[in-house]
């Protein structure tokens, strides 16, 4: 028998975890001598009060959708891909190479090429840890962490020694040529009279992220491969017995996971910076962990959680601008969300299960009477 109704598992627990994380964050803000309520109001107006604010919120959310989906896909096959950061860095490398060295006639073609390159580079970076896990039994968490550092060193080397334009001091590639510039929301929706989203980096990649959500949903719940991934995640021995090849599932799910993380680069590298800089992923790969946990590894949940984190990031930037609260407060909130929705899940779950069990034991009339009393 189910211990709890499904809605409680999917909606109630993440909400309670979020409330706990917010309360603790409010305490931190209080402790450093600021007013949490004012801070929240500032975050809401800064992130959601204008199309400019929304433009940044959705830009960050686009990054987090990709990295959140990446972690979520791996979670379904019960693997923890901490390497999203490194895979996103490599995705950026793929985008940069494609944009710099292929003379694209139009941005739409460039977008297709860059998306493929980003996915391929990200997937390749995930493939090595996956292969080691599948064939040698090396723990994927440790290897993906190591690959994050190796990716950082590799990009550092390439940007400083190979890709930096001659005469430039900054470790970054040259700006991408004009035909590879993606249309922003301002180009798409803004008019002379109504300059919506002006100056905000949100761009057409957002729609690709939404499409990726739908694609992942279809993959996980509507295809044989998705079924095999879930079966493998549920019970490796069971899946093996049912004739599912573990090596194939590990490889394919990490390949998809890495490809999704890599695709983040079309948003931040191609859409926003229009060149590759050091540390371009800016920790978005790690935020994917919080987003996937918060969204319960469901693409729709990931979408909502990514918007929430986009709001936190833009709101946090506003806080840093107008108050003495540093931007790192967002990292604290992110940590608390990961802690409560991930590691301390049972702290919320066990008492709730007891509440629901008590409710079920008492006949409906009794509960109504108890409530009346």
């Amino acid at each position, binding site marked *: 028998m189910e211990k709890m109704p499904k809605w409680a598992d999917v909606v109630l627990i993440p909400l309670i975890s979020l409330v706990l994380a917010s309360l603790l964050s409010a305490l*931190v803000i209080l*402790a*450093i*001598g600021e007013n949490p309520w004012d801070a929240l109001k500032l975050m809401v107006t800064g992130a959601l009060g204008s199309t400019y604010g929304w433009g940044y919120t959705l830009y960050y959310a686009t990054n987090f959708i990709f990295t959140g989906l990446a972690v979520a896909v791996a979670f379904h096959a019960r693997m*923890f891909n*901490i390497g999203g950061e490194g895979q996103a860095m490599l995705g950026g490398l793929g985008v940069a190479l494609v944009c710099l060295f292929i003379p694209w006639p139009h941005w739409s073609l460039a977008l297709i090429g860059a998306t493929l390159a980003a996915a391929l580079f990200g997937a390749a970076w995930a493939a*090595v840890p996956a292969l*080691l896990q599948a064939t*040698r*039994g*090396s*723990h994927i*968490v*440790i*290897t993906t*962490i*190591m*690959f994050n*550092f*190796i990716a950082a*060193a*590799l990009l*550092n*080397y390439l940007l*400083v*020694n190979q890709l930096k334009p001659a005469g430039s001091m900054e470790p970054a590639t040259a700006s991408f040529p004009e035909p590879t510039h993606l249309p922003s929301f301002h180009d798409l929706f803004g008019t002379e009279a109504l300059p919506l989203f002006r100056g905000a980096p949100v761009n057409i990649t957002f729609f690709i992220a939404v499409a990726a959500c739908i694609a992942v949903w279809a993959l996980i719940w509507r295809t044989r491969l998705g079924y095999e991934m879930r079966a493998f995640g549920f019970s490796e021995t069971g899946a093996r017995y049912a004739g599912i090849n573990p090596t194939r599932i590990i490889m394919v799910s990490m390949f998809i996971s890495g490809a999704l993380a890599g695709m983040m680069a079309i948003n931040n590298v191609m859409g926003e910076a229009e060149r590759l800089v050091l540390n371009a992923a800016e920790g978005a790969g*790690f935020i994917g*962990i919080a987003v996937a*946990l918060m969204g319960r590894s469901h693409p729709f949940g990931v979408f909502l959680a990514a918007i929430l984190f986009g709001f936190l990031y833009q709101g946090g930037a506003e806080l840093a601008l107008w108050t*003495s*609260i*540093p931007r*790192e*407060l*967002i*990292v*604290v*909130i*992110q*940590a*608390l969300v*990961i*802690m409560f929705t*991930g*590691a*301390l*899940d*049972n*702290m919320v779950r*066990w008492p709730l299960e007891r509440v629901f069990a008590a409710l079920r034991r008492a006949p409906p009339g009794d509960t109504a009477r108890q409530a009346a009393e």
Partner: protein
Amino acid sequence: MDLTTFLQILDATVRLATPLLLACLAGLFSERAGIFDIGLEGKMLVAAFVSAGVAFVSGSVWIGLLAGIAAALVLSLIHGLASITFRGNQLISGVAINFLAAGLTVVVAQSWFGQGGRTPQLEGAARFEPLTLPLAETLRDIPVIGPAYHDLMSGHTILVYVAFLLVPLSAWLLFATRFGLRLRAVGENPAALDTAGVSVRNMRYAAVLICGVLCGLAGAYLATALQAGFVKDMTAGRGYIALAALIFAKWRPWYALWACLLFGFLQALALRPDLIEATIGIKVQVQLLDALPYILTVIILAGFVGKAIPPRAGGEPYVKER
């Protein structure tokens, strides 16, 4: 390369290996008891900040050290609560602890000192001073041994000697005492220990707390001995390198010493790229030296150079009732 330069490099190796060694031993105790800990980095970072902050305010490095250890212990308890009491995912808890530390240290440092997420420079009694070992000056003129004793063995802060002494101590504790046997058993087969009437929960909490103390030492060393004060993200991935060293050492204390010295040596070399070029005539990229600990660990993990087998019950919460 002459003797003096060589000794300089080895001296830097010892200095840089110390925080790795302390963190690596911390992880050793935790993982031997079956609790994966990727939060070493965060615990070190918090200890570094709190020790530097308290040392600055109190003027005493020893009070700072105690405060740093206490701060690391708090994070250890959170990790224990999540992974032992609430049977949560230990890896996720570790990730959360790392972020918590990265965020909180900067937020609090900014609020306390207002210097953009750093503590003021530590001076005098607020910092660990190098110790001169007995007779270091007298023996200095003896060829080879004299300079080696004076430049390499002598002249480190007390935490360096503590870290190196902790290696035999850990080996003795883990492999020659009843406590150590139980601690290793709880990481291999907790049910057996439970049957023998020993509390799995208590053993695991003990291991996690030892881990906290050692991370506290590592963090305090960074901020009050290696450098004079806390700066944002000063651990710079050392917690992960320690984790790599732990795998490299196959969860054994003496091997941990050699692994940390090797990784410390790589870090020392990365600071002097000119020396490598002068010695072997090839220009080695600094980035390659930075990445080498991680690459070596992946190779070890892949089982190409001896297999690293982690404690069998690692990462699994123990459920008594079945």
